[in-house]
């Protein structure tokens, strides 16, 4: 990133990726407002760290990774905040949304949201975002074998929940 031209160029690529970043963030965070906040953080961090981006790496996977790390930081910060002055109220905001979901019909969204986070993110990156196993493993900071086994378990659970028809086999 040596010239302003290339910075602007990358900025426009990031703008083009915003819809996908928002989509991944929603599968990461669930609450859409929080999701957009985390996208914003991630994008701002990415701009500050453009020099760390290897231009042979995919910009989308790099941003997904920053996004995920931003969310991890936020979760830690929330846990810490909960401890600052009101230990009794820690964890209060968990679980409200799941009650609403009880009433909903199974859909792909609800099925995905029911997966444990590890599996949900593996499915989200590979099946929805179309990343390669290698790139997805890199985003999640896990070995390839871990990624594929999470993906396999996530898929199995989704098949179970969605009871998909056999497909167009002929």
């Amino acid at each position, binding site marked *: 990133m040596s010239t302003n031209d290339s910075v602007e160029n990358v900025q426009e690529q990031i703008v083009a990726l*915003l819809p996908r970043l928002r989509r991944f963030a929603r599968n990461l965070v669930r609450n859409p407002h929080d999701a957009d906040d985390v996208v914003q953080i991630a*994008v701002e961090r990415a701009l500050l760290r453009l020099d760390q981006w290897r231009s042979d790496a995919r910009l989308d996977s790099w941003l997904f990774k920053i996004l995920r790390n931003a969310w991890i930081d936020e979760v830690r910060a929330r846990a810490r905040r909960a401890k600052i002055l009101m230990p009794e109220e820690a964890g209060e*905001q968990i679980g409200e949304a799941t009650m609403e979901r009880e009433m909903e019909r199974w859909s792909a969204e609800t099925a995905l949201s029911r997966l444990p986070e590890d599996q949900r993110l593996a499915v989200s990156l590979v099946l929805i975002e179309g990343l390669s196993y290698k790139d997805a493993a890199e985003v999640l900071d896990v070995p390839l074998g871990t990624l594929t086994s999470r993906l396999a378990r996530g*898929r199995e659970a*989704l098949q179970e929940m969605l009871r998909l028809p056999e497909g167009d086999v002929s």
Partner: protein
Amino acid sequence: MTISDEMLMAYVDGELDAASRASVEAAMQEDPEIGKRVARQRALRETMQGAFAAVLNEPVPDRLIDAARGRGAAARAQTATTPQSAVADLSLSREAARRKKLPARRWQPAAMAASLLLGLGLGFLVWHRSGVLIQPGAGGGLVASAALAEALSTQLSDDRAADRVAVTGLSFRNKSGDYCRTFSLNETNASSGLACREGTDWRIEALAQSPRAAANSGNFRTAASEDSPAIRAAVEGSIDGEPLDHAGEIAARQAGWAAVPKR
């Protein structure tokens, strides 16, 4: 040959090399059951992609586009702070988001705290008639005195006896290596603050009083929760690493809360 589930998935995901792909396809020819398994995997992939495609067509909020072009309010504010202070980033961008008038959420933003922060002036001293807990320090700022200084130096955070003048909340080291502690005053006007050790003083870094404290005077805990965003923001702006645990507090207390030089 037998085809494992993992291999089928890799086939559907386009992860196989040409030779493995050919052997999966040969197996599909031989065994219709394998063909069905592949079809189910494909159907799942298509279902998931279809279900989440709608997000891509939603309009992207301007604040995100601005942020991507390096024109976000938070980005500007952030250049003035340390780039790697991750948590501070969140407060700042949340503040930026709030300025764009997002609806209030359960997760209280640091920005709101600014309006709760009261002046570090005489007004504060009037709230506390039982003793001057905060007074001007030699350096011009404010320092904890009397019972508050005592509490900060001696109490552990899980010591929450009701008769205390102040309870301490969280202890941590700031980026200069000084120990800092949050505290709440057990008074009718619930207020809370953040103090950092400076020599033998506890320097008051932030102080907040809940405007609702008067209305909630019988309910200290509620009041303290209301005003804590101000203090949270101060903590997040200065904390280095994780807060001290119980053993860490005991060790720091033994060492007189002396600053730990950065390695």
